[in-house]
């Protein structure tokens, strides 16, 4: 147990760079103080999102409580939280269990496989609380306040929150450990990550499809009466695909007597059972699936003179070389590919699924109503916002320097100016943003049947906005690049810079929202507002890109490796 706790403590320190979160380290250098307004701006940008979320929960509680179905809110939030853990947990689990470089240090140590694996599981578990908190905590708290939950509710709410990620994460972990033992892909580890991730993404989209159907599909009259007359009718309806979310919500909503304690026992029991299952799987299968995985082989084939001649480039093309390097490395590293390229396509696809499966009452439908608005200002801005979020709200630009990791020394020694290196990197990040813009433009044109002129204006506006957001993301990453990672996951998915950049993006979008409101108050309508926004964003793009190049010249000199 002592060894296990030691491993967990070390894992937490390494994974979360805990020392960085302490103010005395965070702001040891005055140059880090720029982060304070940035985080503040991001939080200000998030406040409206949280405000609307809580308001929605309160409103839904108001609708559901007269029917006695308010517990469905809990089921929905818990299900969403567990679903997120199920999908995102896969990346964490597979890369932490099988592909992190610390395994080379841990495996030869006198530690049991279960100690190593369970410590890694615990570290991921802690990480997952961060993932589920923004979705689950507002609902748990709002529900508790509105239902005047007593001590029992709050105790169970805390327990539910703590147990929430255990079941889905244990399920994913057992699946991964079993799969790796059975197949031990070895030479095909990249293919495994890609295939597994795509499978889970399909599952996520399928899950979204089912969720929308179960919530949104209009039941026949008899079925409606049946599930509304039972106190847990809606809970059962929503959670039918994943019973643990039903147990957790019943444990919370059904007070100290009745089925509450029983469901709490179910919840705890299932978590413990799966935890035990994972422990056994770790003991039996972990090292058998792991050993030999690091071996890489490739078919050796001498290139003919002709092929070598064809393969060898010519001349001095530093910007193109940097761009090509970024492109190849990102596309060939599954974690980078999934979080960069694939994520920009996923958002538009999810919207299409939501539009096609929901009862036209989802976010997609709300967006649809806006983009079809008769007012050009609203239509262009809503479509442009959708395209900008699809293209830019990912970790590509805000991890562009961190992704180099231990290889950053090469960027320091090559005779290419920081400005040119930044140009090559910017082109790559921006190309991915453009891919997201193109995918979402297709969606608004083909699925939402948006007017072509409006779509083109939205594309222009989102290209300008993405230019700014890409440069902002790069500045944030360049300010404190994470170069000492041992697991590529840390460079993009667990990189604090990515979170900071998302805060900053929300902040920038919030400022643009204020600009639109200001212009509206001045009486601007029609195409004048989008045109003014475009000019503003173009000017901002030029300024931010200039700042990025100037900052790069300083940072490339100062960063020591």
């Amino acid at each position: 147990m002592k060894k296990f706790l030691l491993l967990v403590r070390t894992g937490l320190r390494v994974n979360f760079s805990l020392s960085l979160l302490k103010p005395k380290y965070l702001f040891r250098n005055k140059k880090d103080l720029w982060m304070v307004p940035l985080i503040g701006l991001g939080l200000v940008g998030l406040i409206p999102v949280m405000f609307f979320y809580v308001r929605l929960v309160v409103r839904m509680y108001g609708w559901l409580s007269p029917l006695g179905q308010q517990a469905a809110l809990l089921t929905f939030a818990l299900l969403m939280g567990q679903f997120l853990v199920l999908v995102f947990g896969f990346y964490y689990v597979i890369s932490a269990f099988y592909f992190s470089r610390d395994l080379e240090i841990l495996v030869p140590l006198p530690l049991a496989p279960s100690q190593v694996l369970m410590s890694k599981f615990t570290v991921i578990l802690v990480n997952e609380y961060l993932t589920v908190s923004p979705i689950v905590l507002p609902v748990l708290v709002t529900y508790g306040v509105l239902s005047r939950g007593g001590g029992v509710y709050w105790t169970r709410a805390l327990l539910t929150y703590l147990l929430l990620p255990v079941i889905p994460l244990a399920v994913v972990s057992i699946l991964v450990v079993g799969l790796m033992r059975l197949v031990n892909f070895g030479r095909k580890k990249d293919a495994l990550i890609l295939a597994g991730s795509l499978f889970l993404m399909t599952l996520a989209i399928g899950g979204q499809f089912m969720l929308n159907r179960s919530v949104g599909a209009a039941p026949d009259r008899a079925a409606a009466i049946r599930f509304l007359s039972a106190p847990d009718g809606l809970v059962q309806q929503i959670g039918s695909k994943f019973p643990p979310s039903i147990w957790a919500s019943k444990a919370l909503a059904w007070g100290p007597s009745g089925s509450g304690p029983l469901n709490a026992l179910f919840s705890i029991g299932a978590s413990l059972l799966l935890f035990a299952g994972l422990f056994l799987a770790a003991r039996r299968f972990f090292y058998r699936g792991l050993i030999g995985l690091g071996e890489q082989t490739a078919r050796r084939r001498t290139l003919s003179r002709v092929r070598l001649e064809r393969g060898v480039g010519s001349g001095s093309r530093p910007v193109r070389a940097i761009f090509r390097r970024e492109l190849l490395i990102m596309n060939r590293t599954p974690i980078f590919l999934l979080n960069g390229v694939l994520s920009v396509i996923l958002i538009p696809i999810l919207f299409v699924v939501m539009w096609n499966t929901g009862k036209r009452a989802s976010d997609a439908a709300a967006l649809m109503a806006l983009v079809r608005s008769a007012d050009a200002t609203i239509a262009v801005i809503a479509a442009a916002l959708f395209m900008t979020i699809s293209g830019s709200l990912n970790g590509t630009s805000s991890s562009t320097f961190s992704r180099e990791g231990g290889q950053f020394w090469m960027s320091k020694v090559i005779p290419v100016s920081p400005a040119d290196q930044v140009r090559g990197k910017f082109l790559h990040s921006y190309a991915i943003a453009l891919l997201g813009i193109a995918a979402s433009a297709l969606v608004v044109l083909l699925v939402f049947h948006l007017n072509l002129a409006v779509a083109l204006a939205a594309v222009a506006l989102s290209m300008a906005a993405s230019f700014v957001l890409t440069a902002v993301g790069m500045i944030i990453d360049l300010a404190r690049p994470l170069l000492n990672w041992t697991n590529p996951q840390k460079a993009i998915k667990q990189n604090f810079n990515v979170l900071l950049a998302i805060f900053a993006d929300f902040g920038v979008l919030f400022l643009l929202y204020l600009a639109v409101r200001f212009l509206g108050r001045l009486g601007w309508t029609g195409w004048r507002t989008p045109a003014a926004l475009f000019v503003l964003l173009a000017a901002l793009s030029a300024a931010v890109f200039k700042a990025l190049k100037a900052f790069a010249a300083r940072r490339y000199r100062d960063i020591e490796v």
Partner: protein
Amino acid sequence: MIDIRNVSKSYNKGQIKAVDDLTLTVRPGEIFGFLGPNGAGKTTTIKLIVGLLKPDAGTIAVAGWDTQSEPLRAKAVTTYVPDTPAIYERLTGLEYLNFIGDVYGVPKKARLERIEKWLDIFELASAVSSPIQSYSHGMKQKIVLIAALLPGPKVMVLDEPMVGLDARAAHHMKEMMREHCDAGGTLFFSTHIMEVAEKLCDRIGIIHKGRLIACGTMEELQTRNREEQSLESIFLELTDK
């Protein structure tokens, strides 16, 4: 060709002096061996020369270009091989060499000739189209060496280049080093292998606790100490303090 003047570098806000007032000149056509115990300041010095670290004080010039005020000009004539070959593992060997060729602006004809020559010498031709992550440690070391030779640099800076190389590759490497300097180039390298330094280097510098405690040809070092002493004995005597 490499001119280091009163360079100092410390870590932990001056608590650890890694390099202390180092002054050293390496001339064109010279192989300069840099020796020292672990933690003496060898790698720090090398990183200062190639621009990975910034000196706290002093200046470094490579081929006449100050590495702080004219870093791009200095880098354009220098290549570097680190002690551990941390390179782009997701690229194939050829893609990596092309990347280096592109950023140093090596013309196609010269690029093709040099790649062919060094792939053949280091027996890497059959692996060049495979991803670098499938290479052994020695193969990675070789591809980094070929990349360092590809631009035809005036100055090569190598940090323990023999580590991981097999006997044949190490032999070719020593021949390459001599060839490079006979053609007027300069080579600065650190090593722990006394025999290599003794036989290969035109001059040797010994660093200890950040300070250069001896510098000269093998004969000069022997004269300063006792005649007929091996480099190993001189090294042990000088650093046993």
